[in-house]
């Protein structure tokens, strides 16, 4: 034969299984597999190896497409340098790693010479402000705190206002974890965004939705619902140091075109990496 080798059904079945096991979800997995079956029937591939290589490329291209040209960390920092202060709002459901991610981001920006201030706008959960305060010390950045039970929108407003007054470079605003089906909490989040906008038109410049890599199909619902109340501009995928693959981002990127900006790979301050689609897709198929 001329190097042609038929790709059998069981190969595609195994591929389907590994995508579903990686939390890619049924709908997105079937879209990928059906498209592959069609191409296989047209003899588009000369070998299984070639099919896998092209599949990798297709998936990482779709993950890159949401990045709108801001692909590397340096390109992201160029964006950050264009606004003063550059305001990032951090949102997501309970326990996903928002506060820890802010500590890591703060440290990274600080090490690049940026003046950073944190806004402790989680005024609800027990010791949330204490937790963020410890991260501020570790990252060597300033923090704005109000008393427990204060209006989170006011904390956000004050943080941005003080950053303007002090000519600081980056504002990171922490918010309380909240489930997207709690409408009053979604309203509160919208109010926080609006109060930041009020003191600085155009802000927040980035709103990161933090997702736990071990989350299942509910992540897509989270992304949809949070996008309705705040301008989600990026995702942070945490706890990728576990065995979960975080395949949920494929469906989110397809549907909402939201890029993954960073990944969390541990609990220490340095355990944050810019998102690399190729490395991510390799891990998905391991």
């Amino acid at each position: 034969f001329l190097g042609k080798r038929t790709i059998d059904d069981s190969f595609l079945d195994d591929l389907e299984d590994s995508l579903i096991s990686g939390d890619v979800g049924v709908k997105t997995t079937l879209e990928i597999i059906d498209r592959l079956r069609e191409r296989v029937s047209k003899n588009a591939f000369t070998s299984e190896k070639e099919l896998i290589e092209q599949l990798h490329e297709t998936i990482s291209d779709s993950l890159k497409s949401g990045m709108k040209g801001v692909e590397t960390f340096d390109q992201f920092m160029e964006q950050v340098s264009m606004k003063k202060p550059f305001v990032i709002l951090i949102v997501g459901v309970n326990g996903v790693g928002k506060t820890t991610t802010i500590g890591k981001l703060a440290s990274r920006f600080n090490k690049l010479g940026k003046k950073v201030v944190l806004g402790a706008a989680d005024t609800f959960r027990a010791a949330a402000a204490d937790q963020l305060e410890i991260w501020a010390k570790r990252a060597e950045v300033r923090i704005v705190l109000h008393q427990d039970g204060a209006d989170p929108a006011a904390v956000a407003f004050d943080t941005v206002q003080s950053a303007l007054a002090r000519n600081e470079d980056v504002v990171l605003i922490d918010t309380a974890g909240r489930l997207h089906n709690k409408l009053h909490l979604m309203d509160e989040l919208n109010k926080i965004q609006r109060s930041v906008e009020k003191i600085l038109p155009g802000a927040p410049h980035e709103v990161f939705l933090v997702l736990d890599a071990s989350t299942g199909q509910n992540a897509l619902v989270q992304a949809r619902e949070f996008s309705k109340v705040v301008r989600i501009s990026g995702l942070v995928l945490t706890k990728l140091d576990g065995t979960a693959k975080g395949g949920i981002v494929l469906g989110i990127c397809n549907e909402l075109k939201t890029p993954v900006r960073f990944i969390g790979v541990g609990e220490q301050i340095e355990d944050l990496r810019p998102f690399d689609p190729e490395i991510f897709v390799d891990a998905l198929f391991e």
Partner: protein
Amino acid sequence: DLSAKFDSVFRKIRGENRITELNIADSMRDIRRALLEADVNIQVAREFTEKVREKALGADVLKSVSPGQQIVKHVYDELVTLLGGSHTGIRFSQKLPSVILVCGLQGSGKTTFCGKLANQLKKQGKVPAIVAADIYRPAAIDQLKKLGSQISVPVLSYGIQDAVEVARRGVEESRLAGRGVVIIDTAGRLHVDSEMMDEVRRIKEAVSPEEILFVVDAMTGQDAVNTAKAFWDTVSYTGVVMTKMDGDTRGGAALSIRQVVGQPIKFLSYGEKLESLDPFYPDRLAQRILG
């Protein structure tokens, strides 16, 4: 919804004289898909659907006026059976204090659950104390102390960098103070972190808990089986707690964990407040998983 889908499939099948393997294949695929969309583990969904297939070829379905509904009833019944019979409560020991060890992955809701459990036990007349054995997370001890003060339950902490020793001292201090129950909060940990998994095993060995609860976030996907198995291999927990059930996630992880590890789901946490803790009702979760 599944029932309506199956009814339309069976209306077509009616024309043929019996339900065969072939013509229920689509329905079985629909069931498996519904389970996967509910985050049930892929292998568990496969095995579960296989069980339902056998029942689907049974006489009651064939003779039924609405075979679709019959099949869904089988799916539902099978789910309820698998999820586990009646509510299983906390195991208490004869000699005091009874020790409850709480463990799980990062952010699953352990610390909050310790507060909820202490709240419930206090109302039941047990005299609980909580031991703050998460010595790593920033302000973890503060968090627990604040929760404890909300319900007037003592939170014991020691400024030492050894979680096993903290747990041991906490149990000993509680015993001397005549406490009825000690709840030990531990740090979130990954099942692939061998040092931390060894730590929780050593805590167990040091305090011999009657009850070890594995706390799981209800929105966990396919990875639930990996973590549930690994924690099972390390500490053979006696019960499972599903948290954040006030969200809209389908909760299929519960079925996967029940199937693969077999330990009972003892509590469902339904919110951030310390009052929001319910015993587990398998029929309600079955409805939810089916969507």
